[in-house]
């Protein structure tokens, strides 16, 4: 079967046509694909890239946690933890009535309120924020069962010490923004920053990968180091509460301040307030009265009258003032003393708290000079404490003072100041005449460990009064606690106590006169610490006491108890205990003198075997108190506190061993 030439030609033509056709289709398809690819990749590049990124990636807003507030002893005062909040997506909710009814008793919110929130077409609504762990456990099955209900984690501020320093710390709102107290004042440091974290998802919206976490420490809130010592705060609060309840008072304030730098070690208030449950408390209780409330200082202010007298050069401390047997006329008004006195020395004016003595002193000093001294102590302005809502103390311009105003001012009436301002002024007196700025925060440290703020630790160079006057007043204040002074109850056996009572009538704004039943009873002073330590000014004020009105009866015992416990806590050695050491060299500071130059003290020693204690970190005086019973040679080098010792701690002490102590002031 032979095909003809023509047939084979036709067949070749058909074949070529078919190949051409297929090639055409392929080429056309390729062109179409290339054209489509060009359209997608080049023309619509931006659009599809954005769409791809939208589908594949997302951004998550991360709120970094708020910084902590720590106490001076390192304990946490305010911390942030993650808590759960419940939200709903109303458009996904199917039966809002049933859900609202079921959730109401768990969330403790009215069913009608929940129903209102759950209805509608909104995409997001809070049902309850900051749930308790128990509520979360009950709600977990609900979130699994019901569509449109879920938890969201949020920061929650917690105050682990509950009422301790409640008014000082303040609190935050539900969004963790500082509202009161230190939380508010240090908001810019405490607040955590926000950043976005880039996430990549798979088709099921599961996170495949997230971008590198930034340096989290940079975004975290900073740590605020408070000057408050939790243990001192606790004992101050305890003693204040006892003083207020014993005297059936309305409330009270107590403060402990380091006199050298103005650091507030304790700031107590009664009634107390727990910032963890702020809604349960009356908003009036949130206020830190020691900083925000102006009150008349009463007799505690007489100290400044005496300072004005001594600073003016018109009086000497042993000059006499005629106290007119308890009654003295200034203009048309008559001033009285509690007890009748004739001639009193200047320091006795303070000891017996004579109103007449003070009035007569300022009459001679004059308004202008008196005003200048008050201004030197910072009266008439704010103390500069790092706390919100501090008012200026109220002191009228001296040119407006009438003679009776001047007399009243001399014994603490007609001036209004805060407790902090008064304590800061006494601190200046206690440190030898240097002004201090009261403060509650010593430093702020970032997450990376950088100190971003620090209160200057040095003593201020600004003088409130001369060192000589400060010393004379200090000696006069020590008379107040003598048997015939106004506050013998403030005395502490073994310690030198200096202080002043205050009994101030409250002004009755309805009657426009001073009340005869409502008083502020106070005591302010300090005890002498061991050499090398600064004095701690302690102030106690009881508002409207009913058992007695006198500061010496109401507040002085609390002052005494606080100082006794403070001395125990700060390891003060009382004079009696020190005397029991029977130091052969006699002088109190001999150990320091010896230490400065390197020296040797021979003690009377017994031969009783015992174990060598660890004296490191203690003063040489404390060490000598314990090794004092042994007849051994004690070698001391350097000054300050003990950094090394021989024999080593735990060594059995045998006859013939020597004690060697190396001291350094750097610990």
């Amino acid at each position, binding site marked *: 079967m032979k095909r003809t030439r023509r047939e084979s030609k036709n067949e070749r033509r058909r074949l070529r046509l078919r190949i051409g056709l297929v090639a055409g289709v392929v080429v056309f398809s390729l062109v179409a694909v290339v054209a489509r690819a060009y359209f997608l990749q080049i023309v619509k590049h931006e659009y599809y890239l954005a769409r791809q990124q939208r589908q594949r990636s997302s951004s998550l807003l991360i709120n970094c946690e708020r910084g902590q507030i720590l106490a001076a002893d390192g304990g946490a005062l305010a911390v942030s933890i*993650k808590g759960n909040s419940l939200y709903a997506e109303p458009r996904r909710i199917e039966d809002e009535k049933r859900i609202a009814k079921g959730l109401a008793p768990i969330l403790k919110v009215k069913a009608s309120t929940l129903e209102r929130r759950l209805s509608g077409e909104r995409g997001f609504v809070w049902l309850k924020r900051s749930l308790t762990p128990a509520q979360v456990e009950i709600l977990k099955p609900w979130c699994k069962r019901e569509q449109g209900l879920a938890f969201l984690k949020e920061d929650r501020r917690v105050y682990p010490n509950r009422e301790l320093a409640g008014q000082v710390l303040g609190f935050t709102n539900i969004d963790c923004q500082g509202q009161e107290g230190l939380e508010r004042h240090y908001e810019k440091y405490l607040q955590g920053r926000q950043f976005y974290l880039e996430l990549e998802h798979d088709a099921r919206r599961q996170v495949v*990968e997230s971008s590198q976490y930034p340096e989290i420490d940079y975004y975290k809130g900073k740590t605020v180091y408070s000057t408050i010592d939790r243990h001192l705060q606790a004992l101050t609060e305890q003693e204040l509460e006892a003083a207020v309840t014993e005297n059936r008072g309305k409330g009270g304030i107590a403060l402990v301040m380091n006199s050298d730098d103005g650091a507030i070690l304790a700031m107590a208030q009664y009634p107390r307030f727990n910032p963890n449950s702020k809604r349960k408390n009356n908003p009036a209780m949130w206020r830190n009265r020691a900083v925000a409330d102006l009150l008349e200082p009463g007799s505690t202010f007489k100290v400044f009258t005496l300072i004005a007298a001594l600073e003016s050069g018109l009086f000497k401390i042993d000059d006499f003032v005629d106290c007119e047997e308890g009654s003295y006329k200034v203009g048309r008004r008559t001033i009285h003393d509690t007890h009748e006195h004739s001639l009193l020395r200047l320091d006795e004016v303070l000891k017996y708290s004579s109103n007449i003595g003070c009035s007569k002193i300022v009459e001679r000093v004059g308004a202008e000079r008196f005003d200048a001294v008050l201004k030197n102590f910072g009266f008439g302005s704010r103390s500069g404490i790092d706390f919100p809502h501090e008012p200026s103390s109220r002191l009228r311009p001296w040119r407006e003072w009438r003679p009776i105003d001047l007399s009243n001012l001399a014994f603490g009436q007609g001036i209004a100041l805060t407790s902090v301002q008064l304590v800061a002024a006494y601190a200046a007196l206690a440190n030898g005449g240097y002004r201090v700025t009261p403060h509650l925060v010593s430093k702020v440290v970032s997450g990376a460990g950088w100190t971003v703020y620090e209160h200057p630790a040095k003593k201020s160079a600004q003088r409130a009064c001369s060192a000589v006057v400060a010393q004379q007043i200090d000696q006069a204040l020590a008379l107040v606690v003598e048997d015939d002074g106004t506050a013998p109850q403030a005395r502490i056996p073994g310690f030198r106590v200096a202080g002043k009572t205050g009994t101030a009538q409250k002004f009755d704004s309805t009657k426009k006169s001073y009340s005869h039943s409502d008083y502020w009873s106070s005591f302010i002073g300090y005890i002498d610490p061991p050499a090398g330590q600064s004095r701690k000014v302690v102030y106690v004020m009881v508002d409207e006491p009913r058992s007695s009105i006198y500061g010496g009866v109401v507040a002085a015992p609390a002052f005494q108890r606080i100082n006794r416990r403070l001395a125990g806590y700060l390891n003060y050695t009382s004079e009696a205990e020190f005397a029991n050491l029977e130091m052969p060299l006699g002088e109190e500071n001999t150990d320091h003198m010896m230490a400065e130059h390197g020296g040797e003290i021979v003690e009377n020693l017994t031969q009783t075997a015992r174990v060598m204690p660890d004296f490191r970190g203690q003063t040489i005086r*404390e060490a000598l108190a314990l090794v004092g019973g042994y007849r051994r040679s004690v070698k001391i080098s350097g000054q300050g506190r003990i950094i090394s010792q021989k024999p080593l701690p735990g060594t059995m002490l045998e006859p013939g061993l020597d004690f060697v102590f190396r001291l350094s002031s750097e610990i």
Partner: protein
Amino acid sequence: MAAKKGHQSQWGWLNSCLLLVMVGMIFYCSWINNKIVARGYQLNDLREEEKHLIEEQDKLQAELATLKRPQNLARLARLLGLKEPRPGHKMVLP
């Protein structure tokens, strides 16, 4: 003719090798990509776990601070028969 055939088979051999390498590379890239995705999931899980542990730690620290608050310590100390020290009161423990 034989030389031409040998030349063609050499090219075929080379093409096959290239194809094999390409397929191998595709498999390798897919495997690597798969590994990256798996590691991504793992990393994400670990981050979640870390976050959870940090939250737990914060809660425990807050609880510890509550337990160590001075009032609580004082109450427990009194229960154990301890007393507050007098000023300067020291005891040397054996």
